[in-house]
């Protein structure tokens, strides 16, 4: 069979060239995507500028440090010390984490590692359903169901365990604990879902290796799964924290909205987010009061920023230490 000569030329130009219009598509596509990405940066910058601008009257009236750390929120007297709000925010979030994260991680572990295959899917659906309930509904349920039903139990706990710090005294209807409990329920699906994803990326051979050594299931989880997932789970928890801090509606409905710092977890409290939602109506015409609310929003924003920054730093550091050095893989990236 006679060999045919290879034809490196076609259409009068080398096949190694492409029409100019085709070559334009790639850079255009890339530029569009970059523009969208840049939009995000522009938005954040905008945020900051505007919020600071509007918060300015109140901050200069009160002073930034005084705003943050003065324990006196009294709009009628034009005093805007937001410390009770900040404290309330942190307290309710802390309670939420303490209750919510262990349960969320336990759920994630159970679903991924221990549950029989048939049960896994329904369980996942059920946990995700918790996220389907919007915060206003949790608030509604909190007010009319949780608060009245838990009050006796809370009082019993306060009376029996009053030697513990922050426990004791008279249980107010809406209080920090209820707020923290509802927040825990609200952050559970997020923390669990992310933890679940992280846990399921543990390489099977890692798990099988420990099982092959004769480890029990729990030991396998402890030796292979948890260390590998540690950074991811921490990230999940931090996202839960951020969510808890910013949650407005459910909290404001069940925390009592009292601008003081309670001594017990069963006292009423207030949070930065709640104050904005509550006092916005009356502050509409008062530039100073409105400014104070914007300042509260700014603080919330900055707090969130810090938490996210901390979360990322933690995750990055944990990632570097827990993962073994990998060979440089040929990853097609944006080289062209």
């Amino acid at each position, binding site marked *: 069979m006679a060999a045919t000569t290879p034809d490196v030329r076609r259409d009068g130009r080398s096949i190694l060239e492409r029409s100019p219009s085709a070559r334009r598509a790639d850079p255009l596509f890339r530029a569009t995507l970059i523009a969208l990405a840049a939009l995000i940066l522009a938005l954040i910058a905008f945020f900051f500028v505007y919020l600071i601008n509007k918060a300015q009257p109140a901050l200069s009236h009160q002073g930034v440090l005084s705003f943050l750390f003065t324990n006196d929120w009294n709009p009628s007297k034009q005093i805007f010390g937001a410390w009770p709000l900040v404290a309330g925010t942190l307290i309710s979030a802390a309670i939420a984490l303490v209750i919510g994260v262990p349960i969320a991680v336990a759920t994630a572990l159970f679903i991924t590692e221990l549950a029989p295959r048939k049960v896994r899917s329904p369980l996942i659906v059920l946990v995700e359903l918790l996220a389907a309930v919007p915060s206003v509904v949790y608030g509604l349920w909190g007010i009319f169901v949780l608060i009245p039903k838990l009050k006796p139990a809370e009082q019993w706990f306060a009376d029996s365990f009053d030697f513990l710090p922050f426990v004791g005294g008279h249980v107010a209807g809406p209080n920090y604990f209820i707020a923290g409990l509802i927040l825990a329920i609200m952050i559970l699906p997020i923390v669990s879902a992310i933890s679940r994803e992280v846990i399921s990326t543990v390489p099977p051979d890692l798990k099988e290796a420990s099982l092959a050594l004769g480890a029990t299931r729990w030991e396998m989880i402890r030796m292979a799964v948890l260390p590998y997932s540690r950074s991811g789970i921490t990230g999940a928890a931090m996202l839960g924290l951020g969510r808890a801090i910013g949650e407005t509606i459910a909290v404001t409905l069940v925390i009592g909205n009292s601008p003081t710092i309670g001594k017990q977890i069963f006292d009423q409290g207030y949070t930065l987010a709640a104050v904005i939602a509550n006092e916005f109506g009356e502050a509409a015409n008062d530039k100073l009061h409105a400014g104070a609310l914007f300042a509260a929003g700014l603080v919330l924003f900055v707090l969130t920023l810090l938490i996210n920054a901390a979360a990322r730093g933690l995750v990055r550091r944990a990632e570097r230490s827990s993962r073994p050095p990998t060979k*440089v893989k040929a990853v097609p990236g944006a080289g062209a």
Partner: protein
Amino acid sequence: MTDPTTDTKTMTDSSTPAGPSGSHAPLTVPETPAREAVVTQAAPGISVTGLQAYYGSGHAIKDVSIEYAPNKVTAMIGPSGSGKSTVLRCINRMHEEIPGARAEGKVLLDDADIYGPSVDVVAVRRAIGMVFQKPNPFPTMSIFDNVAAGLKLNGVRGVDLKERVERSLRGASLWEEVKDRLNEPGIGLSGGQQQRLCIARTIAVEPQVILMDEPCSALDPIATLKIEELIDDLKQRFTIVIVTHNMQQAARVADTTAFFLAGELIEHAPTNDVFTNPSDSRTEEYVTGKFG
């Protein structure tokens, strides 16, 4: 199309050089009658001159020059990190897809320099295909669509897809096994079948050269053997360059073998010579198992 040399291909591992002591029998290579497979479609040769490749600031390939003969199989062997895969990826300009990586030099496909100034990398890759170490059929596509992917993705018109797909699957020795289930997902096949599917996908766009980056290292021995037989068929139509860490495989399939070390080409000669009578001492040390 059976290869007359199939019978003599049995290279058992018992003939592999023994342990670290150094005294061992040399690699026995079967008596190869001139593997002049019938050339049904003349493919171009590739001529590499002065190739340099970098990963960021790291100089990975140092001034490599090598010729890949048309319609022949050239194997590139060497220890890990010797640069053989990098050289391979420079041939179809996949190397530069890695962020921070670049390559310089002259790589002639027949008489066209694929690193020339007006050359478009996308077009280069249509002429020079690649099969990867881990079979990677597109998960959302059926077997048929996978093979046709190269044509569909590039909007190639005027091609009878069904005919091209069948021809490619036959060319990859996969047609008989999948002809009744072309609409099933490509990922439903076994590892060896997936790799042959990827080969079919590669030849469907009718390249002139096929590059193979350790195509059998993720496969079992039987699947490996099937693909090696396939390579022998394919060289009738394509020029083939194969990177392999398996020296026996090189001895089985390659007409010539090139030995790389630390980013440099040490030796390139007919396979038989490389394994039985290497001219460089480093080559000898590698093929007799002293390192790598």
